[in-house]
């Protein structure tokens, strides 16, 4: 197993290097980072010259890549167009996003497994069909539509009914909320509930559909029939033989989907005005901020590679038949 992990890590580093070259080239060639400054006729020429020097825009592309890369491996992501440290910004925005993403991922997993299980156990019944319809609705409706509907038809009536902000529609916290973490918990909850529900609804459906499908496959497999024939209790068959085996492919999908959830979070953050990684990335793209865009893209590349690795390792734990080290 250790050899396998090391081998995968080495491949991951190689992929990351390749990704860094591709991403840098694409971002560097995507536009002139001085665009916003040049569009303002009042920007002094001296300021533009300083920016050119700071961003090494007169250097060849490979040289710019090397300057950027040699700094990144030392943990220095450079400065953004507005002169702020990108690494520090990445850090603060990441914590904002993770608050939403982690919570919604956990809830989505529970919801997907539960819904998938109910659907599979009630296969072909009206419950199964009803659940499937709901799943497909949430799978097909865009995230921002779910967000807007929740804001307009859930938050606004509730807040107007109570004459206070019960469900906040924008921002991740009220800056006037005082006290320690527990005293501020109601405020955090008020701001977190709707974005989390939005992201859960956008995420769980595909997993639930997949979970239902794998459960039905496993339920109809020979070893499950054998287990039932041996007189093992239905509960034990379900938990030990069906669910455990059906979770293996779903785990992989969830691990691989994590980067996708981050993508969904970009939209959710925009709809709810959270100042997370999504906003950070969009600002970077809109302002043609090379260092910001690169930092976000490299972070997602690392996350994808890491979660791929984690999915493989999880396979080993969930399925004892898999012995990577001896292959």
């Amino acid at each position, binding site marked *: 197993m250790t050899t396998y992990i090391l081998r995968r890590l080495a491949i991951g580093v190689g992929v990351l290097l390749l990704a860094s070259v591709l991403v840098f080239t694409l971002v560097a060639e*995507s536009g002139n980072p001085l665009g916003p400054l040049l569009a303002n006729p009042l920007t002094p020429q001296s300021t533009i010259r300083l920016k050119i020097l700071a961003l090494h825009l007169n250097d060849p592309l490979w040289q710019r890549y090397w300057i950027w890369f040699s700094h990144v491996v030392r943990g220095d992501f450079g400065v953004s167009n507005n002169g702020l440290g990108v690494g520090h910004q990445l850090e603060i925005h990441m914590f904002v996003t993770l608050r939403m993403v982690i919570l919604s991922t956990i809830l989505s997993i529970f919801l997907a497994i539960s819904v998938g299980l109910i659907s599979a156990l009630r296969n072909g019944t009206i419950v199964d069909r009803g659940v499937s319809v709901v799943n497909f609705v949430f799978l097909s409706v865009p995230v921002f539509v779910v967000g807007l509907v929740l804001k307009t038809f859930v938050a606004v009536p509730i807040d107007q009914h109570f004459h206070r902000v019960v469900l906040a529609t924008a921002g991740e916290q009220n800056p006037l909320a005082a006290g320690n973490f527990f005293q501020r918990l109601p405020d955090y909850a008020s701001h977190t509930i709707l974005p989390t529900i939005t992201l859960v609804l956008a995420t769980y459906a595909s997993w639930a559909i997949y979970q239902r499908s794998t459960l039905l496959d496993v339920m109809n497999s020979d070893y499950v029939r054998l287990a039932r024939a041996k007189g093992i209790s239905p509960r034990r068959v379900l938990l030990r033989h069906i669910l455990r085996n059906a979770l293996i492919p779903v785990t992989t999908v969830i691990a691989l989907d994590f980067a996708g959830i981050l993508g969904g979070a970009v939209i959710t953050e925009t709809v709810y*005005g959270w100042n997370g990684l999504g906003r950070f990335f969009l600002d970077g793209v809109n302002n043609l901020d090379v260092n910001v865009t690169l930092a976000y893209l490299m972070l997602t590349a690392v996350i994808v590679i890491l979660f791929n690795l984690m999915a493989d390792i999880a396979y080993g734990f969930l399925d004892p038949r898999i012995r990577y080290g001896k292959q």
Partner: protein
Amino acid sequence: MKMSKKIRPLLAVVATLALGMNALVASASTPKVQAGGTVTVDLNETLAGFNVNNVNSNEFVLQEIMQLVWPTVYFVNNKLALTLNTDLVTKVAVSSKPVETITYTINPKAVWSDGTPITADDFIYNWQSQSGNPAFTDKGGAAFQPAGTTGYSSIASVKGSNPAGGASCAAGSAADFNAGLCPNGKTVTVKFGAKTPFADWQSLFGMLVPAHQGRLVGWNTGFNINGGGDESTLLSGSWYYVSSYNASANTVVLKKNPSYWGKPGNLDSIVFAGSTDDTSGIPGIQSGTFNVFEPVSTSLAMIQQAQAAGSSVSYNVQPGLQFEHFDFNEANAYLKQLKVRQAIAYGTDRSELIALTVGQAAPSTKPLNNHIYMNTQPQYKSNGNAYNHQNIAKARHLLTSTKKFKMGKDGYFHPTYGPEKGKDFSLNISSTTGNPIRSQTEQVFQFQMKKVGIKINIVNYAAGDLFGTVIPNGRYDIAEFAWVGSPFATGNNSIYCSYTDKANCGANWVHFKNKTEDKLLTEAAAASSPAIEAKLYNQADAILWKNMVTLPLYQKPVMTAWSSAYGNILPNASSVGVTWNAQSWGLK
């Protein structure tokens, strides 16, 4: 000065001071409001530091915040008129001989929130940091990076005199670049160069950076605070101070400045938070998450949302100080001919174009007939009346009269020269991607030009590409975008003066060149009175129309929405935004 929400430094005078003061008084006569309370303003841009005069943090929303924190000599009110901030400067004297000289008398009570008096040194420092003169440097010898140098670069000297209490002038120091300038003076004398008088001098000294603090922390980056305790770096010299800043949440809380010597702000605190997208603004007000909202762009859907919200939401749509227009690239083999540009202008039905696009959200939008002044400004003169109505016959006649275009059987003209020789006369129109109103405008324009006999291809780019490479490098035929202005007209000089003067006319992307225009623009910027300035700028505008340099389309409507529970909220369509009078807001 363009379509992003980056602000443009205030540049020149538009209205007379007397007019401005009257307008302010009239506009501020609003119902009584309760004392105290909090208002939350939607903050739809990520803040990048707090020195609004610096190129890196020169954002519209930051101006809305810092104009309540750092003192400003002249305000722009909601009628786009100017008024003197007598809390800061009790008297201003202007003389034009032998050189233009402005003398400010600082209010003796004016102090920064750390107790340091506001003095001539603050004016000296703000001039030096925005002058563009490399002789003046920031902390550590770094070059200052101002957002603009207009006006400040025309100043020859800023000196203090009359220190408080009859004290003698401080020596100043060479390191602070204020040696011999009487930095502790309470009277400030600003002298412009003999050849560089500046008509829009009232635009100067807005949001003064505290000199002693700037030198201590550094002007370029010293005000890029992180929050969590370093807010005290941002000293206040106005109604409010920055009580807290949360970088990760992008929220700012302003609280009443206890050291403020003038009439204190009415609200206890003003919160800037939310960062929502445009479609969520009205629900945000309805839910109480925030109370004031200014969308990035105004749409019909948003207005309908506000109407549907009923009496709980108030809103206002008014023409802003920004206008949409077509740029004609005179470097193009065909567009360099005046008759071709005129043909396009005559063939364009601006009223129809407005009705089918922005007019759906703001039906009162009219074609704009001036490049310098907007419909809503008192200096506005309708210089483009000739193009009020579409005239296809005239457009075709203009093309035919050049004897370089022949009408083809397919209904399109065929040039007899240049890269399109013998083919359908085709031109590209370019704008920013992802902007539905601009896309619709291009499509309507395409249809209108087909009637004339010109084939229009739509080739759009991401904003960064369009303004970063495509337009500055002249890789376009016709471009559609907006210029964002202020009440100060001198900012337009760099757009319309001859492109051959690369140092001063960098925004003249259309390659227009005209000596008379240059002369008029220069004279207008140095005019001795606002009336003369307006007259000269209108003459300069007439030349722009005569040469069909660019075709202004319309003044863009700007929407502001707010909770009806609050009073005294008076939307301001200029670059100062709705918070221009936030010190007077309150619960009804």
